[in-house]
Each structure stands twice: as C-alpha cells, then as structure tokens.
C-alpha cells in the first residue's frame, strides 16, 4: 500500500512537470496553430540558466528561478521574432518545420553552454523526504506538484480572463481576420512564445532537480509532453493538467509494477505507456479529453 502511494506521489510530481511543459506547447498552439518543436531546447536552457544563477552566481534559489524564466522568455520571444514571424500566414506545418530548425540551433547553444557538464540547479529539496499522512514522500515531488500547478493556474487565469487571451485564440483561428479586428498578430506571437518560454524554463528547473543532475541531452524529456497535449486536447490548458497528471501517474505505476507483474512487455515499457493511453483515448475522443472539435459545416 505504501508502495502504491509512493508511486502515485512520484507520478503526480513528474506528471505536473509534464503538464507544465504541455502548457507551453498549448499556448503556442493556441496562438499560432503551430506545434513548437523547439520547446525541449527552451526547457534545457531553463535548467541551464537556473543552474547558472543559483549555483554559479549564488543567487537565492527563487530569484534564480525567476531570472531564468525571464531569460528563457526573452530567448523564446527572440526566436519568434527572428524565425517564426516571417512564417505568419504560411501553413502551420511549414512553421512547425521552422521550429525544428530553431530547435537544432538552440540545442547546439545549450550544448555549447552546458558542454560536458552534468548540471545541478541548486534546488533546496535535494533528496530530502517528508512524511505526509504516514507515508514518506520526496519533497521534490511535492515541490513539482505545487509549483507547476500554481504556475499553470496563473497563466490559465490570464488567458481566460484577459483580452489578450481571446486575441491569442483568435490569432490562431484566422490571422487575417484577427488583424482586421485590430489584433497585433506579431505581438501576440511574441507574447505566446515568451510565456511558453517561461513555462519551459520552470519545467527545466523542475526536471533539473533530479538527484543526478541534468545533461544537455536531457532536453529530449520535453517530448514527453507531446502525448500529454494530445490526450488533454491541443488547445486546452485544463486538458494539459489532467492529462499530464494522468500520464505521470500511469508512467510511475508502470515503472513500479510492470517489471514485476508484466515483464513480458519488455524493459522500459513506461516510455510507451503515454502513447498507448493517448491512442486508446483518441479512438474514443478524436479531440482528446478536453480539446475543441474543429467546427465543420457546409
């Protein structure tokens, strides 16, 4: 029983970082209809900057994290301005391919910055554990859960309540018409990349709390958000949260129990579990759990 609870808690911890990463994808998708393959690089840069500010510059951890978020937001906005802006009005998949180019460039930057090092972000939690309701859980998992959901909450509220939130969605639906309503599409694009960048940076920090530290290649972990956004529904922040947690827990339970109870599924089966869940759900709900169906009428 303890094992089960521990596994679920770990799952919620990691799942909430998936949700955070997913929100980054969703925000850019909601504003631009583009799936941003550069997100992993933004995430690893977030880990790098946190480490730089917290361990090398010796700033207090929360300050370091905020600075890292600002830095990566700036990187995101810059990428948008330089690489994505010229793609306004072009088919989303051509723009998605551009983000692949951006990813390659940023990833090399990350490799250059991180080099041959294993980074630690200097988080205050380390390997410490706390007992909650009689079960010993890692503080890191609680931190992941609380920080991710708080950040998502803030962003979600902003998008739902503000004029810019509506303008973002309008931009994604039809850029020309959005322009005609006076929406500064370029600014919206930049803004969405900046927010996504900040979210990715935060996620990078949380991923960086791994006890072994992170390397440049750890960037690819961000791809775990792909099944999450689809499962939740591409344009749904709420969906990202539920799907992130669901997948985190499913993955964690698989890690705990599959080697013992279903060894025939092979090693590291947890890697494919998110995709299996996603595929099954898509068969029943083609737009994920909370996605908006595309309106079609003739």
């Amino acid at each position, binding site marked *: 029983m303890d094992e089960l609870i521990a596994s679920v808690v770990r799952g919620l911890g990691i799942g909430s970082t998936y949700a955070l990463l997913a929100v980054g994808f969703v925000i850019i998708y909601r504003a631009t209809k583009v799936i941003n393959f550069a997100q992993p690089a933004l995430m690893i840069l977030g880990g790098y900057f946190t480490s730089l500010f917290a361990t090398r510059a010796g700033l207090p951890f929360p300050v370091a994290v905020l600075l890292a978020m600002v830095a990566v937001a700036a990187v995101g906005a810059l990428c948008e301005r330089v690489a994505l802006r010229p793609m306004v009005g072009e088919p989303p998949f051509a723009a998605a391919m551009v983000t692949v180019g951006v990813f390659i460039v940023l990833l090399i930057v990350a490799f250059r910055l991180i080099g*041959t090092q294993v980074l630690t972000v200097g988080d205050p939690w380390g*390997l410490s554990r706390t007992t909650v309701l009689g079960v010993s859980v890692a503080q890191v998992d609680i931190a992941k859960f609380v920080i991710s959901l708080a950040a998502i909450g803030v962003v979600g509220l902003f998008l739902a309540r503000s004029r810019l939130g509506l303008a973002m969605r309008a931009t994604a639906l039809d850029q020309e018409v959005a322009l005609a309503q006076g929406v500064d599409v370029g600014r919206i694009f930049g803004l969405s990349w900046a927010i996504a960048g900040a979210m990715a940076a935060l996620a990078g920090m949380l991923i960086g709390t*791994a006890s072994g530290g992170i390397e440049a290649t750890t960037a690819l972990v961000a791809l775990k958000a792909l099944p999450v956004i689809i499962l939740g529904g591409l344009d749904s922040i709420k969906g990202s949260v539920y799907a992130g947690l669901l997948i985190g827990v499913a993955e964690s339970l698989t890690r705990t129990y599959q080697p013992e109870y279903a060894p025939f599924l092979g090693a590291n089966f947890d890697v494919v579990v998110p995709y299996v869940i996603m595929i099954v759900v898509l068969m029943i709900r083609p737009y994920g759990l909370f996605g908006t169906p595309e309106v079609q009428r003739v």
Partner: protein
Amino acid sequence: SDDAETGPGVSDDPCPDAVNADNGCIYLGVLSDLTEGPFAALAVPITDGQEAFWQRVNEEGGIGGYDVDITEFTRDTRYDPQEHSAAYREIEPEILALAQTLGTETTEAILGDMDSDDVIGAPASWWSGWNFEDNDNGLILESGYSYCLESQIGLDWFSENVAPPTSVLAVGYPGDYGGDSAAGVEAWTSAAGAEFAGFVETAPNATVGSQDAAIGQVLQSGADVVVLAVGPAETAEIVGGSAANGFTGQFLGSVPTWNPALLDTPAAPALQALYTNVAPWEDLDADTEAHAAIRESLGDELPANQGYIYGWIWSYPIRAALEAAVEEDDLTREGLRAVTDGLEVDFEGALPATTLGGDPNENVNRTAVINKPDPEAPLGLSSVATEVTGPSADSYEYAAACSG
C-alpha cells in the same frame, strides 16, 4: 626512413600547421560524437585527448619522417550509423587509418567498408566484440579490458577487499555496454557461486525521463552489490535515489559512469558512501609516464572529465602500428593492416604491455584500477587499488563476444 612505401592518407607535404615543417604527413580520421549525440559530453574530451596525444608524437619528431594529423578529417557523426558510414566514405580516400571510431553500431556500420579498404582503427568503446576477429576482422585496435571483464574484475576485487557478494544485480543500457557488463556479472556470479539477481535494462534519461524504474528494481532486488553500466547522471540518480529509499548495498560503476560534476549533485554523499568506480587505467594524478605526459599536455587546465585520458590512451595501439609499419617500410594501408596481428603495444605504464590479435583468451588485458569518489582528486576520483586482477576474471574462458 623517408623511403617507406606509401599510399592514401600519407603525403610528402607537411601537415597543415605542422610541428615539423620538413616532415610529411600522415592523415588519420576521427569519427566521433561531437555535438548533439548521446555521448557528446564524453566524446569531445576524448577527441581533445587524442589531438594532444598526436601533438606530442609530432613534437617528439613524428613517426618515420611523418607528422600525424587527426584534425583535418575529424567528423561529427552523432552516434548515428548512417552519418558514420557517410562520413567514413567521405574521408576514406584521404586517410591512412582511423584514430577513433566511436560506438559499436556505428563502427559495425563501416566495418565492411573498412575491410575492403584495409583501413584499421581505434575504437572509442570497450565492447568485448573488438577482441575477436569474428567481429572486427582484426581491424579494430582496442585498449584495455572489455566491459564484460570489467565487471568481473570489479566483483573479484570487491569480494576480496570488501565482502563477498551474495546477490549481484546488473543495471545498464542493453547491448554493447550494459549488456556486455551484465554478461560479465552473470559469468562472475555463476563462477563465484553467488546469486545473479538479474539485469535491469534501463536507458538514458533523455529517453526514459528518470531512473525511477531502475531504482524501484534495485530496491526490490535484495542484491547487496549492483553493477552499473549507464551514464553519469543516471548513475548519480540511481545511487542517490536508492540510498534515499533506504538501500544499503554497494554500487560498482563501469568506467563511463563517472563525471567529476557528480560531486556537486545532491547524490554526492550517497556516491561517496556507496559507489566504487572500475576503470582500465588510473586517473589523472597517476604516476606513470603516460599520465605524466597527459598532465604536461594539459598544463594548468583540467579536462571536463576522464574522456581526455581515454582518448589519449586509446591512441597507443595506432601509434604502435604506425611505427611497426614504418619499420617494415610499408606505410600503406595494407602494410599497416599486416602489422596489427601480434602487434606489441606499449602504453607507457598506463596499461600493461599488450599483444593485439592472436588468441584473445591469452592476450586480452585483464587488469583494472579501482577508484573511489574523492572531492580532493582533480577529476573527482582517486585510486584505491591498481593493476587489480582476480580469480574469476582470470579464469574466465574468453571465447566470443559477451553480447551481440
């Protein structure tokens, strides 16, 4: 002797930026993982170490009237067999041999070509297959033990100096690395009458996200020794995570499980308490001619990790082969290939002198160095025992590749 017969990859013109402007130039290729591949963190220092090695060779006058250049034909192949084979074909007409070909699958992808081109090379991996003609047609000139022997020597040492393990678990990446190491573990347990608690196949964090699954299995296994063949971050996570959950067994880590930066991670205390590193040769501060030369090449700077040392030492067999070929007055590829079988390699004390080719069971290197994490040491490791051999490793019947 300037009158040796020459072929592709050997030029009478000096190397670019030659140390000895009067010498001709021998071009060696490097196919490595230099930007975004999974081993870039290790491969970049490896390549640096090799460059330093050959720089020293040139500064000492070169080989047979030739300087050796390895930078001109260095290519980044990102640990991808396709890139590896394309890059090989690109540089092949210009090189005499390969100073480095990193990885097993990647090297396998070019072995056929190497065979028909008579190109020999030094590996950047310790796969057991390179010890056997069946796998490499005698083309790959390896240095030191294989992962398969590594784990056996490590366990021999452990049972003699710490405590005889009753149950050993292998955790690693499947295939040429962890698979090889696990095969050694299994062989050792059956020879020593211990329990083989199984092989936990894991993968880099970039793929699996975290080592939670491995940690879970370590905790469940009941093993008192765990042999690791993973990457550095994964090592720290497994050791730290297992310890935090109350695991009290010990960890033996393969050479590439270490990175000096691990001592800054939250797992550092656990590593210092529970982790032992097994390596084929000593770390930076050792007292051998080779290590002295390495330190000299570095000056005041420290390399990012041990890769620099690997790269350096992996270069000796190629140097020996070149010298032998010059001796035979045949500095062609065929000539070079002809001298490899039975070639005596002197590692300037870093490793015992080794004979390449012949019967692997006889010639293979079965010694290791045992290191412990040490914040005081330059690269975070200091040796607790050198030239370690053990009964099980010594008597292991080495007849074929352990994995693959």
